[in-house]
């Protein structure tokens, strides 16, 4: 029956939409975000290059067992990252240059830098 066919088509569309929402939306949300990981004693990567003149989303993951604070004086950002936590830091368009960041709770962690080009 045509009615049954259209219902099936609608159901199929809804299922496809659900699948897209589940798997594509998070990827879109994180699209463009740069990833920084704090592992034992250092940041990974230590230096990352981003395009200048564009807003920046940074996702910082703390895979150590200690509370850390992702901090950058030049970016004017500071945010605590608990062990296992992922935080998101948003900054406006950057002028070309180098912006250092560090773990403010542990001065032994070498600082990293974001280079905007």
């Amino acid at each position, binding site marked *: 029956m045509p009615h049954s066919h259209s219902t099936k088509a609608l159901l199929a569309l809804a299922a496809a939409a659900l699948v897209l929402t589940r798997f594509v939306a998070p990827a879109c949300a994180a699209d463009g975000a740069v990833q920084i990981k704090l592992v034992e004693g250092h940041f990974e990567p230590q230096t990352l290059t981003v395009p200048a003149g564009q807003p920046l989303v940074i996702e910082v993951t703390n895979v150590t067992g200690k*509370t850390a*604070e992702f901090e950058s*004086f030049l970016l*004017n950002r*500071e945010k*605590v990252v608990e062990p296992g936590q992922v935080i998101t830091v948003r900054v406006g368009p950057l002028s070309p240059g180098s912006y250092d960041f*560090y773990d*403010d*709770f542990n*001065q032994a962690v070498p600082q990293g830098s974001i280079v905007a080009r």
Partner: protein
Amino acid sequence: MGLAPVGKYLARAGVAIAIVLIAAQLVPIRLSNPPVTGDIAAPGEAGIALRGACYDCHSNQTGWPWYAQAAPLSWWIARDVEYGRRQVNFSIWNTYYPATRLRKLEWIGRSLKQPDMPPKWYRAMHPGARLTKAQRAALSAWFAGQVAAASATQ
């Protein structure tokens, strides 16, 4: 009667809250003042303002208020002091690497330009920690001098 069941529920809720609060007191919490190993040498007015407004959270010389012994407030206060000390601890100031000291000085200079340091809730509980314009100016001037001196040696 309409009110009786409500009264019963309120009484039960009160008992439940009391039990939770009593149980919360059993969770151990450490309010400690570790040794001072390298106190910052801030002189005169700047030193007085620093001790009066900043030392409770940013030193090992915290004056723990009586309510810091009562959970759940104690958990919040202990956590705040822990984070405050880790951000900048004037009692271990001389143990910081020169680069660390410089960036902390820069942050302090920036914080002093904001009205929210010390935080509002802290100022409400500690009227003595409210910085006057003169005290803020004295602190800013002293820290600016420290930034200049530290930058010169970098």
